[in-house]
């Protein structure tokens, strides 16, 4: 089962949410997870998880290389995104090509994971503003979409923005609003409350800090229950 974390705006917490979900699944629930850093703009998840530079998810298409799979800790694996971020800066790829590569991953993921002994539960962190047409194709392939936004999603900056959000909301299996204000708590289905930033920006410290908040832990648990069937990520 593949879950994609996406957003309309940048910096809303896709990578942080990915880390928190992965930590809760792998550490607290002891359910293994494979992460793919498909943020081809920044590869921030790979950095947050302190993965070394190595061939990532785009490498099979770029250089015909087997991608690296990092064991971050027991039950948690990562396919990094450094080479995709590098290629995005260096070469004239069309977005359609990168989308096609990611779609090929989705198509081949069950066979890839099974043949390499990797978990079937996959979370893909992405770049902001993935095209709706692409997300629709992924949805048709059975990918679950978690859309994350901050208060801009409910503050109606403009009619155009509101329409854009509405289109993404419609596609999403779950909508998360980050840094919730009092106003958003009752309007968004899943909310993450602001937490203090840990001094050590290590993923485990960040994830633990989020999950220490009872409301946030409840949100993360509900999200995992929503996107993964109980057979994959059931309560332990």
């Amino acid at each position, binding site marked *: 089962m593949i879950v994609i974390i996406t957003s309309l705006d940048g910096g809303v917490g896709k990578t942080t949410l990915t880390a928190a979900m992965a930590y809760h699944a792998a550490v607290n629930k002891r359910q293994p997870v494979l992460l793919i850093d498909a943020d081809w703009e920044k590869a921030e998840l790979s950095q947050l998880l302190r993965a070394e*530079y190595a061939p990532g998810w785009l490498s*099979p298409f770029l250089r015909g290389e*087997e991608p690296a*799979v990092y064991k971050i800790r027991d039950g948690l694996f990562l396919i990094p995104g450094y080479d995709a971020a590098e*290629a995005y800066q260096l070469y004239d790829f069309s977005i359609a090509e990168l989308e096609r590569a990611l779609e090929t991953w989705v198509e*081949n993921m069950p066979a890839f994971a099974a043949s390499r002994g990797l978990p079937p539960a996959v979370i893909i962190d992405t770049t902001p503003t993935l095209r709706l047409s692409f997300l629709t194709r992924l949805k048709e392939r059975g990918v679950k979409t978690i859309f994350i936004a901050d208060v801009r999603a409910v503050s109606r900056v403009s009619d155009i923005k509101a329409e854009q959000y509405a289109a993404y909301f419609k596609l999403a299996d779950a909508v998360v609003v980050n840094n919730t204000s009092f106003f958003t708590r009752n309007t968004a289905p899943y909310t993450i409350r602001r937490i203090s930033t840990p001094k050590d920006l290590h993923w485990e410290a960040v994830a633990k800090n989020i999950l220490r908040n009872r409301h946030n832990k409840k949100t993360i648990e509900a999200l995992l229950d929503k996107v993964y069937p109980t057979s994959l990520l059931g309560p332990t």
Partner: protein
Amino acid sequence: MILNFKKGTQILGKKIADLDTGEPTQPAAQPAALQPTPALATSASAHAFEAPQPGASAPSEDWGELLVRLLASAPEDVAQKLVGCLDKEVLIKVLERWSNPYLKVALMLITKT
């Protein structure tokens, strides 16, 4: 640069056994620490030449890796002497096995002179 979807799909669909028993997907073998297949690599700091990563299943017997680690950790004057004793081609071959853009540029500079 064009993405090769045929090759990419082949690799993703390839069984790990195929990868182990030949059919190399890349021309030069890299040290396992930088060429991890499932669950081979552990997350670690970004510095590739620091002490061997605990838990990484990179074969510690790999002479090329050991040589590089030795040269990187030895006092500079000793390292210089050792490098002076070694065949340049051997060192270049060892360095060529690492997939790192900085090393690639460094190799270009070394081989140019």
